[in-house]
């Protein structure tokens, strides 16, 4: 990137100097400010890429700037990577996290959000260790928090809906396609007598929703197993499954009501 060399080339030595200073060196503060100001256009550029998703650009720039500060603080030139290849993912990660926090459809206290994140990762870890979904008591023990807090946190999870950005990220992550995964379940579907009415409706679903429904109801997999296979969290599977069932029920109802 020649343009960035011209624009930011003078900052590279400052970065090295900043990284080499001791944490309590009084010179750090001024240097840091100079760096943040100098690299600010990078943060603004990334923030603009996330615009038009229902969030004010000013907020996004602010979040991206926080990401930039993290990047400047954590960058170590002696690792041999250049600053941009470190800073760009760090800054976009910060903006993504901001969108993830917005995925709450109800105002939930920060403490509960953090607990939700902690519970989510505890669930993933425990599911792997136990080979099944964990119980609230096991999560409480793992996180060393009171059981009442876990119950509260699980309740708060019900107020969460994934934002569209989140959906986008997780489908990026799940690289497996429906065709690759479904195989066996498809055969089971053929034996279902009401497939005539169900199949067209399943066809209308997004690929991932369809896959989850098929694996759960025709492949007889648990939510935890599906989560592992599709590459999203058990709670996300639970939410998608509940949403999809509701949608299917609405669509199926007129045909089955008379039956």
């Amino acid at each position, binding site marked *: 990137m020649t343009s960035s060399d011209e624009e930011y080339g003078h900052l590279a030595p400052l970065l090295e100097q900043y990284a080499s200073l001791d944490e309590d060196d009084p010179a750090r503060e001024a240097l840091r400010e100079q760096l943040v100001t100098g690299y600010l256009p990078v943060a603004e550029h990334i923030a603009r890429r996330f615009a038009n998703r229902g969030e004010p650009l000013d907020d996004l720039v602010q979040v991206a700037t926080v990401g930039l500060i993290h990047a400047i603080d954590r960058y170590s030139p002696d690792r041999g990577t250049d600053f941009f290849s470190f800073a760009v993912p760090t800054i976009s990660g910060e903006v993504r996290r901001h969108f993830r926090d917005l995925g709450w459809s109800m105002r939930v206290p920060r403490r509960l959000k953090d607990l939700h994140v902690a519970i989510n990762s505890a669930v993933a870890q425990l599911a792997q260790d136990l080979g099944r979904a964990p119980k609230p008591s096991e999560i409480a023990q793992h996180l060393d928090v009171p059981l009442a807090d876990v*119950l509260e946190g699980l309740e708060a999870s019900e107020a969460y809906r994934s934002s569209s950005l989140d959906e986008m990220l997780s489908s990026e992550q799940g690289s497996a396609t429906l065709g690759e995964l479904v195989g066996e379940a498809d055969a089971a579907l053929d034996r279902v007598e*009401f497939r005539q009415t169900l199949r067209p409706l399943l066809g209308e679903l997004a690929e991932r929703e369809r896959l989850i429904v098929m694996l759960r*109801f025709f492949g007889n997999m648990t939510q935890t197993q599906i989560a592992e296979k599709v590459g999203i969290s058990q709670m996300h599977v639970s939410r998608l499954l509940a949403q999809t*069932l509701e949608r299917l029920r609405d669509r199926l109802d007129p045909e089955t009501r008379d039956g």
Partner: protein
Amino acid sequence: MEVRTAASAALIPTIRAVASDLAARADFDLDAISDLRMAVDEACATLVDLAAPASTLTCIFRVQAERIEVSAQVQAAESGTTVSTDTFGWRVLQTLADHVEAQHSVNGGVPVVGIQLDKRAGDLPR
């Protein structure tokens, strides 16, 4: 524990919240909590569709060691009404619950339809 509401779809979220709270407090594993929640949702939605106008939906939850029994009932709109078991909804119930049964009876001349389901605290590791 018994929950009685108007047989209206708008109240189903309350009933399923009760179901998932009971399961969480009974220390069901997360899959089982979520399954029970969806099963109660499905059962209630099925019954509300069959209910007589202005009738009552009754849900009885019995929390046993390692399992919860749910029994949901409504007064049916007409005599001879049954819960159909060849639907996708029934398939969903069979998958989510460990045992599910459709019931119908006549109580004091009023036809009653119900769904009974059992959910264990956790699946055996497979």
